[in-house]
């Protein structure tokens, strides 16, 4: 066993898992709390990654990344809120089918728009100097980009925790996870809450998209790839469970990265294997919300 390689893979897996968490946590809230299934969530991630790459190409690796981290997630949130208010609202009454159709149509349309705007070539941009090296830590060489991803994700997770536990919006979201009908019955504007959660979810996907840029190879297949992984995370973590999705994302990320050491076909297969195994034992995922299945 090569411990150097192993620790590097675990860190890489953790960093990947952090990205998966950012994408999946918003989606799990949106679905679990407010019953919105958004297949186009991965498209937000992909568009943000392209936009982030564009920022870096325009303003250089350092300033560009920081600018992108501020502008792109906000733009993604605004975009998602607009889509929610114009396209999703009319179809809520037909339960999940309308949402599936609308969001699948969005996947197709947004992918094509990305192809028109950014071209079919995969984009790779130079990572900022600060993040391109390694950090020596207790005899282990750790890639500083991956550490950077972890720092950003930790900050976002902290923000999410504060939001969910301390703010009124957070209390409403948690109430919606437990009992959406009751929440509507006591007079909360669930419609507005939906828009807000959609915006928060897109904000998180936007952050994930930007910090994924230095990994390179930003391509048009990302939307479909990440949404499948995000769904796997949600299923393993339990619907509507943010911290369950954190655990699930890390499990998946690490399993995926470590498996590449042993299998040359690892990667996605491992993700789905983990998903199937977890669901065989716990059909509702790590965390079960009472009354849901």
């Amino acid at each position, binding site marked *: 066993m090569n411990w150097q390689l192993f620790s590097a893979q675990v860190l890489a897996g953790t960093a990947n898992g952090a990205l998966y968490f950012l994408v999946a946590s918003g989606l799990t809230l949106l679905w679990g709390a407010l019953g919105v*299934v958004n*297949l186009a969530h991965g498209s937000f991630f992909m568009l943000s990654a392209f936009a982030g790459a564009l920022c870096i190409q325009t303003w250089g690796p350092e300033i560009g990344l920081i600018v992108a981290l501020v502008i792109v997630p906000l733009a993604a949130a605004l975009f998602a809120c607009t889509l929610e208010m114009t*396209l999703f609202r*009319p*179809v809520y*009454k*037909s339960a*999940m*089918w*309308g949402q*599936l*159709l*609308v969001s*699948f*149509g*969005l*996947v*197709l*349309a*947004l*992918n*094509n*728009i990305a*192809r*028109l705007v950014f071209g079919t070539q995969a984009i790779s941009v130079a990572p900022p100097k600060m993040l391109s090296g390694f950090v020596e830590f207790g005899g282990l060489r750790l890639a500083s980009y991956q550490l950077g991803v972890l720092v950003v994700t930790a900050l976002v997770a902290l923000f999410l925790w504060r939001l969910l536990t301390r703010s009124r919006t957070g209390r409403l979201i948690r109430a919606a996870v437990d009992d959406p009908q009751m929440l509507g019955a006591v007079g909360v504007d669930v419609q507005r809450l939906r828009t807000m959660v959609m915006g928060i979810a897109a904000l998180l996907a936007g952050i994930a998209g930007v910090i994924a840029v230095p990994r390179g190879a930003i391509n048009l297949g990302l939307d*479909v790839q990440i949404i*499948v992984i995000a*769904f*796997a995370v*949600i*299923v393993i973590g339990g*619907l509507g469970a943010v911290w369950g999705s954190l655990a699930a994302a890390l499990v998946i990320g690490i399993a995926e990265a470590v498996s590449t050491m042993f299998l040359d*076909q690892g*990667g*996605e*297969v491992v993700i*789905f*294997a983990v*998903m*199937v195994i977890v*669901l*065989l034992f716990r*059909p*509702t995922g790590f965390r079960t919300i009472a009354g849901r*299945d």
Partner: protein
Amino acid sequence: MGQFDLRRAAPLLLVALVFCLLPLVISKSMLPEATRIVVLAGCAMSLNLLVGATGLISMGQGLFFGLGAYVVALGTIRFGMGYGAAAALALAICLPLSIIVALISLRAKHLFFGLLTMAIGQVAFVFVSRNYKLTGGDDGLVGVVLPKWLDNDLAQHYFAIIVLVLAGLVLLRLLASPFGATLGAVRDNPDRVASLGGNPKLYEIAAMVGGGLLGTVFGIVWSGTEGSVEPGLLSWVTSAMLLMMVALGGRSMFLGPLIGAVILEVTRAILQSKSTNADLVVGIVVITCAVFFPEGVGPRLQQLFAGLKLRRTPAQTPAAKTTEMGGRA
């Protein structure tokens, strides 16, 4: 439970007739597109056995579709089997596979069930698209060896229509049987089925096997009419596309998936010949249909026809009219 008679099969036969007459109307280069629509429509109709009849939202129909296509392609290209023998082999593989998929994915319910079927399909997709030696990997396989009677566009077109009609008749017969009625009961109220002494899970498994077998059949037809296979057939995008055909056309209608397939694929075929940005328009069409007809285009069309008939027959009592309006609102 409806009776299985000629009146119920008539719309299907009518549509088949229209497809049969298509080669007289459209240009030769468009004929393969028409054939493709027939095959995809058939596969979507077999998916509707799960979605519409049993209430199982499967996102893994592409697995069976791709299985049929790949087994035939592999059998004829790599192992020198005949088309018929390879088709039989595909069905023989599909039977145990669909039972295994059903047993795993039916552990979860509702959309989680769908995501599990999607995951299993993705495993197959990744396996096929990475395995360059056997399956040709990303490039797929070209040059399926076809029997003599199937080696021109026209024959392929009629072959696809014949299979569509046969599969449609099987589905209609199935849905009109006590088994089909129980599937509907399982969809509407599984607890009640259980309390009446039925085993809902057994019916769900049976529906999945049926849908899987028919999906495989259309996969077999696909490799016969296209002459090539690619791993995209197995991916969840294909499965989602089929599901969208069902939803778009109307899952509550027997011919709904066919309508959905025609809407999606005709749009795509027309645009693809002119530009590379067909997806954009197809996406917008899907969104527009979803916003205006969230329950599918088919039921809406049915209502329109019913409305026309109503206006033509003045003998209708006003009471009947109001219920019709009430039903529409």
